[in-house]
């Protein structure tokens, strides 16, 4: 069952076409990788999907409902939530309070939100940072915080925008483990990433964007050996995990 469907989605700003006629389906419970060079329109697509932008053309269907132009808070309540390419911690609030904001999406009780938030922090192994001000965290923990925060909204579909950007190999590995753990919980994920090793490891399917258009789609192995993709983005063939 496709939890998310994009049908011929286009987004233009004035004369600039940031996304052109992008279509794909994401199966429930799967992990879809979304790759492509910088400026390919990946983040713009996320913005359209979550209601931050309204698509110029095309349809975005979530769990069978057309959600074009729905406000981001309504999209979140429906079960779809995203992280930001440039992390956005609520700097003057504590780590725990940050995650509580996510939890408050589902409950009106501050007490319940606090408990929910504490559990999410355990999942990302940041319980000891609960009272720390979010503004003082290093980048690796900010990324984990953002993930805990979106998980607290009890999503069915999680859109991760370069969640490994700027992390060292250990931190990236933590995130990969987290993504796999999230999959275990049955949450569907779409992952924008430049780290090809990570993409190969977690994705069930991969979509490649280039200059706003969908260039290719398929299993990770297929995509990575696709000549078009190699020419436009990868630069050389990736074989047997040498990259």
């Amino acid at each position: 069952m496709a939890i998310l469907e994009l049908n011929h989605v286009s987004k233009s700003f004035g004369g600039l076409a940031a996304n052109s006629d992008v279509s794909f389906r994401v199966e429930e419970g799967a992990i879809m990788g979304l790759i492509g060079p910088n400026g390919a329109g990946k983040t713009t697509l996320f913005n359209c999907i979550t209601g931050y932008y309204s698509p110029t053309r095309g349809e975005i269907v979530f769990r069978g409902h057309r959600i074009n132009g729905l406000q981001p808070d309504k999209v979140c309540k429906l079960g779809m939530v995203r992280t930001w390419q440039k992390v956005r911690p609520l700097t003057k609030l504590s780590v725990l309070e940050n995650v509580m904001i996510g939890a408050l999406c589902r409950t009106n009780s501050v007490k319940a939100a606090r408990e929910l938030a504490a559990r999410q922090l355990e999942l990302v192994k940041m319980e000891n940072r609960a009272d720390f001000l979010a503004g003082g965290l290093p980048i690796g923990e900010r990324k984990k915080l953002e993930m805990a925060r979106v998980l607290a909204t009890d999503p069915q579909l999680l859109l991760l925008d370069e969640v490994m950007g700027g992390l060292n190999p250990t931190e990236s590995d933590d995130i990969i483990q987290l993504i796999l753990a999230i999959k275990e919980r049955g949450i569907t994920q779409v992952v924008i990433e430049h780290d090809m090793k990570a993409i190969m490891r977690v994705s069930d399917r991969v979509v490649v964007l280039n200059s706003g258009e969908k260039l290719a789609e398929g299993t990770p192995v297929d995509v990575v050996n696709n000549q078009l993709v190699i020419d436009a983005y990868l630069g050389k063939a990736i074989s047997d995990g040498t990259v």
Partner: protein
Amino acid sequence: MGSRLSNIILLLTLAALFFFPRFVESPYAFHIMILLFLSTIVGTSWNIIGGYTGQYSIGHAAYFGTGAYVTMVLMKDKQIPPWLGVWAGVALVIIIALVIGSICFRLRGPYFVLASIAVAEIMRLSAMNLKELTNGAEGILATELPAFRIGGRVLTDFVSKTPFYYISLVLAVVTIVVAFLVLHSKLGYCFQAIREDQDAAHALGINPTFYKNAALVISAIFTGIAGGFYAIYVGFVDPATVMSLDISVQIVLVCIIGGIGTIYGPLIGSILIVPITEALRSNLIAEAIFKTGMVSQESHFGSFLKENLAHAHALIYGILVVLVILFMPEGVVGFQRKLWSKWNKGLG
């Protein structure tokens, strides 16, 4: 500060305030306390939209003035006692807040600030021009206040300042309690999320329009009540005193100096500013300087002081604001917190 210690201090302070009228007789001291409570009420309520939600309205005089005028007009023209009339003021203030919110909340940051100023000025100018309603620039002078009766028994006839003292004290306490409850509720968390990053909050399920308007309405209600109280306490309203940009700026300054986004910031800011302001205005400070003999009343400097110190309060505001913004942007309370946590880190 240990929670237990601060609670004890709080209770002691409240007790002291309640028994204050027993031990003090000077009506002038009462006047200063009443003004202090009023400043706390408007500051604390502004903080809800300004400090917690991050929308720095510099147009709150619109709500203060509306509360003042409605209460006054209903009492004077329709003989409706102010403790009932003020609720009509609150109703009108809510409507106005929603209208202003629908206009101004589409704008962000400094543009929101400018819009809030423009809207408040439109209201002030309208109050000046709609003479049949508000008596224009001449203002409205109150006749005697009706006696407050419960079941035929007169509780007070508002002759002395004492009833005003207790009413404003209770209002101030209520406002602070409400602010505290709001801050620790879901509303409070959503407000702060919007302040920190409106778009991130939006994507996490928070509807900014709803919450910004909620914050503004709560803030406007208490500011309007304060305006109504001010009208009957002072006995006179005109656009220049209750609806001016000066009032809006003063409200913000008290919070900046005391500590934006903290519960007690506006209270501390009021304590710092109101007594000094009043002391200057009433020449108390000038008198004190002359008494010490440092400066003679007859001397050039002396007469300069006598003439002008009364007007210096706004200058003090300006200097305080500049100093605080440059060196203590978190305000006095914020600064004290920083010092405290540094001290704790040092000890631990």
